[in-house]
């Protein structure tokens, strides 16, 4: 399944099944975890999107939702749990702390964004994002899953574990360099 490109109709059904049966390992770190839990309870309810929140552990999970501030002390644990998840796995970074460090951008003990440690598929901005924003993020991830080709994703991941963008059909500039310090002119030029 990870090496053979399926024919289109079967691939459609296959991806449709995968996107609506995401088992989520809720890696709640901080305040965003409260909004995550609120998104899983009756009023907002992301279970109706097929995302079930109570995975028993990383080994049975497809989706990792990192919600909250990632500190340097916690970073090895995230990496380890992410590595324990079997492919295909998706990561949603929920909240501005896990997107980029958020309000703690100048702290000495905060990792400025979970994407410094693990590759992220969808970023949901906000501090904290509303539960509706999480639902939107889940739907975008589901669109991605619907349109992606699993062999390409796995091959891309084997080639470069940090890159998840290119194969999902989004118009990412392959020459854009995502460094921490911005350079003048986003299209690189000499970078």
């Amino acid at each position, binding site marked *: 399944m990870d090496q053979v490109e399926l024919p289109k109709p079967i691939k459609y059904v296959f991806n449709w099944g995968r996107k609506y049966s995401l088992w989520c390992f809720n890696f709640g770190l901080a*305040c965003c975890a409260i909004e995550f839990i609120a998104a899983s309870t009756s009023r907002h309810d992301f279970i109706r999107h097929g995302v079930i929140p109570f995975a028993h552990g990383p080994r049975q999970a497809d989706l990792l939702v990192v919600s909250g501030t990632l500190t340097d002390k*916690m970073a090895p644990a995230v990496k380890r749990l992410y590595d324990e998840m079997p492919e295909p796995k998706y990561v949603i970074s929920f909240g501005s702390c896990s997107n980029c460090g958020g309000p703690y951008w100048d702290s000495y003990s905060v990792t400025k964004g979970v994407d410094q440690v693990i590759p992220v598929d969808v970023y949901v901005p906000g501090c904290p994002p509303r539960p509706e924003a999480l639902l939107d993020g889940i739907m975008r991830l589901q669109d991605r899953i619907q349109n992606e080709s699993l062999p390409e994703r796995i091959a891309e991941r084997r080639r470069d574990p940090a890159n998840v963008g290119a194969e999902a059909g989004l118009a990412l500039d392959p020459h854009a360099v995502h460094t921490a310090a911005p350079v003048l002119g986003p299209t690189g030029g000499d970078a």
Partner: protein
Amino acid sequence: MSDLDTRERVLQGTAPGEGLAIELIGDGDLVTADMSLSIGPAHPATHGVFRIVFEMDGERIVRARPVIGYMHRGFEKLAEHRDYRQIMALVNRHDWLSGFANELGVALAVEQMLEMEVPERAQWIRMLMAEWNRVLNHLMFIGSYALELGAITPMFYAFREREDIQHLLEAATGGRLHFTYNQVGGVKIDLPAGFLRESERLVGVMRQRMPDYFDLVHGNEIFRGRTVNVGPLPVDVATSIGVTGPALQATGLAEDARVTEPYLQYDKVEVEVPVGANGDAFDRFDVLLRRIVASIDVIDQIHGHIGAGPVNQKLPKMVKAPEGWTYVRTENPLGQLGYWLESDGGRTPWRLKMRTPSFSNVQAIPYLVEGQLLADAISILGSVFFVVGDIDR
């Protein structure tokens, strides 16, 4: 539990196995080694990234060592680089279930240093928001404590109430979790029209729904079996460690900053402080549940007191606290929150120390857990209500 004594039993009679002599040799112990079990930091039974290392002899815990710091974001250092408006937006994030109460402490500290008179309407609004925030916080813990013990339904009930209250607070402040509604000298903006009417309606709704919690969880014999006489905390140990809030009130001491050292206008309302009997897990939960009822009563009284008037005052372009220091203590939902604000006359604090209730409450965990069985330890861990951001700041 079972004593592994030397025992010699001789079965006699007409039952099968009669005449057999069964003798336990030695003192009944198997040859074992102590096991070190690390729970966390990412564990469903702990509230967030809290790690505790148990050294165990079978099922019994010999030594417990909590490891904290997984949510240390360097708050106190960041506060030294931010002025008093920026601090307000950041400080509500350490105890993330009681955002308003955190901001309130900072505002009170700066106002105390500036000797600023806060308009009365603003004080009543602050009290109203603080009490609704307290209800929000306690509802969360009722849901999550029951979840840890295996009961999934109370979580959904608790969040149903939380959504209603958050909807109400969002109408006034714009935030569901982090309100940023306080400012030095009052609150940011007046309440919207219809807010008080909606608040009164919610008081009625809460009063109608609280018996559900008492029936579902409080009177449930499985719940009681897991929490009664589990992890008792004596008063002298609690005060020596610095435990405050529901955990201290459960030991029998009615120490509540709203009553013993009233701030805002708490001396004009009657605040009931429920106490427990022997400080076990059930008492802590019981106190929490009754605190919700007490807060609803306080909110009802506040409705009668809110009058008209301004809600904030004109501040200078840059708020500067004078030289010196001050200490302000408020009753946060989780316990007593203290702010030591030391200023050198500049725009940013020289030192802002946050004395957080969870830091002291969690310090009591080794005392409570050592000697208990692992299943009881989970019950105790949940009953010492803490928020990890509050421990580590």
